């Protein structure tokens, strides 16, 4: 099922459609995110950690919820036939679903990730945490891509729930594993930033997972013979 070329205007229309239909959920996450950020302003270390945890919950929560609603509901509420009957190819539909979800996730993810890194760069902060923070930030991106891929490919509540569970467990387990890797843990609590070979390997492997997951989504969608 290949089409001659991608109609980007149609992809944009489909993205805006998903954002409009889920606007209250997206807008509702903004005060939650701002409230989490406000905790940082108290200047206490425990507040910083609490803020990061809350922000991660908001970002992952919105990402997972939006992926669930935009992909599964399309089938569950029988609107898929309406959308596919429009002048849209499977490739444009897939691109729109991925981008609609990814952009909503990437905006707060980028702000929080850069914000966290900037805070760690402040004088007196534990600069050694920067590689680990970067690794965990990219890990969040990977898990969100996994949830989006599961949603777009399977359009099944059960499989997306499995993906969300795997992502939650993955973040905790992989976070623990990465924090205990020799090349990461040895310099983590130091005042100097040390980008070791291990840290780079983990980060690059995670970054490669993003195109791999999204590429796999397009490949599997292209092999589908039935969109009903």
């Amino acid at each position, binding site marked *: *099922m*290949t*089409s*001659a070329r991608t*109609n980007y205007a*149609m992809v944009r*229309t489909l993205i805006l*459609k998903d954002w*409009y*239909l889920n606007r209250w959920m997206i807008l509702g996450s903004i005060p939650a995110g701002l409230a989490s950020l406000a905790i940082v302003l108290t200047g206490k270390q425990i507040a910083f950690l609490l803020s990061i945890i809350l922000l991660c919950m908001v970002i992952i929560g919105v990402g997972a919820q939006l992926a669930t609603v935009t992909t599964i509901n399309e089938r569950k*509420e*029988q*609107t898929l*036939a*309406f959308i*596919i*009957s*429009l*002048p*849209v*190819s*499977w490739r*444009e539909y897939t691109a729109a679903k991925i981008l609609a979800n990814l952009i909503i996730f990437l905006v707060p993810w980028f702000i929080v990730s850069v914000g966290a890194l900037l805070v760690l760069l402040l004088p007196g902060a534990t600069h050694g945490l920067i590689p680990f923070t970067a690794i965990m930030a990219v890990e969040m991106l990977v898990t969100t891509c996994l949830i989006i891929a599961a949603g777009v490919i399977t359009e099944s509540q059960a499989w997306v729930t499995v993906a969300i569970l795997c992502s939650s467990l993955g973040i905790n387990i992989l976070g623990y594993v990465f924090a205990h890797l020799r090349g990461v843990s040895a310099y983590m609590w130091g005042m100097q930033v040390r980008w070791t070979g291990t840290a780079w390997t983990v980060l690059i492997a995670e970054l490669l997972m993003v195109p791999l997951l999204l590429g796999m989504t397009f490949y599997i969608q292209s092999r589908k*013979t*039935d*969109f*009903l």
Partner: protein
Amino acid sequence: MGLVRQDSGSVEMLGHRMPCEQTAAKLDIGYVSEDMRLYGVATVAWHMNFIASIYPRWNQTYADALLSRFDLKPQQKIKGLSHGQRVKAALLLALAREPRLLLLDEPTTGLDPVARREVLAELMAVLTDEHRTILFSSHNTLDVEQISDRIAFIDRGRLIALEDKEDLLDRWRRIRLLVPPSAVLPQLPGVVEVSGSERLPVLTTSQFNPAVVSLCQDRGTTVQSVDPMTLEEIFVANVQSRRELQPA
């Protein structure tokens, strides 16, 4: 429509190969099916704007006229509409984009008589434009008989008949005969079913013409009546005779 890939062969729609040229083809197609739903949380007006942003030929004047004819309100949310109103909203979105081909899959299923009449009236209005075609699939043969000028029968996924409605209705007849003891039942062309008794047989033929009556009379039988058949009766007789010849 690009929803399902064909098992074999090739599909061409309005000169476009499917599914690789589906986006070009679908610009000229309006599709409505019984199980297709619009977005419940959005209004009729939002759906109209959404479709208008995609189809350059969207006719707002016609859309407004359909809104009033179908008694729909632009600010109504889809989730608050009845089944009949939802079908009419979907039909409005398909009609106002002025497609060359309207694909309607069981659009009148579940509609009350008034809504069904409104929908069929609108479809008949579309058919006054010779450049536009409606492919209408339905189990309700009365609806099909009312608006179609060509009929296709599909049984077990296979096309078993495709021809002009008038030709089809003209070809199929039920012939009631009286066969006296001295005569035998004549061999008539296209007989797919013989029911009744030996003396009063009822023949269903798919190849009726006036000469058949003369042939019966020549063989000493009396033709009591030649009854036209409804589309439903033709479909059932056609399918049953084929299934007897080719069991599943």
